[in-house]
């Protein structure tokens, strides 16, 4: 458990350092995710301790967004002042994006799967 946590923090740290050194347009943890993926691919399996820690962390991933979400309180006046453009843009655009992405993926992925079967 402790080893697994150290591994995650270490990879995040390496991610943060590389992003700054190389001026990459990515957050450190996302690069850390890529690094962990490469490690796992090299290893060929997920170590049990990492598996357990990951399950615990990801089961309640949504908890981790709560503190930032409460930050809405600071911007309530600004959001209230432009509630119509902000509200409509957020709801309309987010739901449209879900629809477009899901639809394109389901059309194309279905087809490429049949292609694989035909070969």
């Amino acid at each position: 458990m402790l080893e697994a946590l150290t591994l995650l923090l270490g990879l995040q740290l390496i991610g943060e350092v590389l992003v700054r050194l190389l001026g990459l347009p990515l957050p450190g943890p996302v690069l850390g995710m890529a690094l962990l993926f490469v490690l796992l691919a090299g290893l060929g399996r997920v170590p049990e301790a990492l598996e357990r820690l990951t399950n615990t962390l990801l089961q309640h991933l949504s908890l981790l967004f709560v503190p930032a979400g409460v930050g809405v309180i600071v911007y309530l006046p600004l959001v209230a002042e432009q509630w119509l453009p902000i509200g409509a843009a957020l709801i309309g655009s987010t739901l449209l994006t879900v629809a477009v992405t899901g639809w394109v993926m389901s059309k194309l992925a279905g087809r490429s799967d049949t292609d694989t079967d035909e070969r």
Partner: protein
Amino acid sequence: MSGDLQQIWVYLAASPLLGLTVTLLAYLVGFRIYRRLKLFPLANPVLLAVLLLVGLLSLTGTEYRTYFEGAQFVHFMLGPATVALAVPLYRQFGLVRRSATALSVALIAGSLTASASAVIIGWLLGGSRETLLSLAPKSVTTPVAMGVAEKIGGLPSLTAVLVILTGIIGAAGGSWVLDRVRVRDWRARGLAVGVAAHGIGTARALQVNEVAGAFASLAMGLNALATAILLPLLARLVLG
């Protein structure tokens, strides 16, 4: 007696213990309701917890800064949790690789829709220039969104709030939209919420289905990359 209570409040208000504990409590209440309603999307636990906490802070007149001193310990775990998303991604990588072409096209289509439609809707309804530029990167994970907003002339701290609201909307409304457009493939459902609603959408996808969770994790990471590269270029083209 009331003097004692006063002293206890002074202690608690200054200690990170209270902010941390109420965050966990509010989330537990939210999660219990969410589970009681069989993961009904509108009962999103982030939304419920945020509503409870905003109510609590307003009632007690507590400043967000004071609250965050405790809550930051939870916030901090976002980093290692993001790294951990590599695990479901690794487990489902066979599926991901087989749909790589479809995935790339859907990702770019979704990424462009996310920025363009937000700016267009906001512009039609009279949003200020600053608001529109803060809205543009709303679908990507907070640190990237803030960086992009700053680069194109938006308000990074406003963007951070819009990003969270977007995540809640995508997690709460995503399943409904996907049912309406008849997308039943878990790969597509995961990818869609990951592109549109970053980590909060991914959290919801992981709770519902592991394949969807893996595609959402990947979508979140790749959309961060795509938006960070494409949006500043597009903004320069459009704004001249």
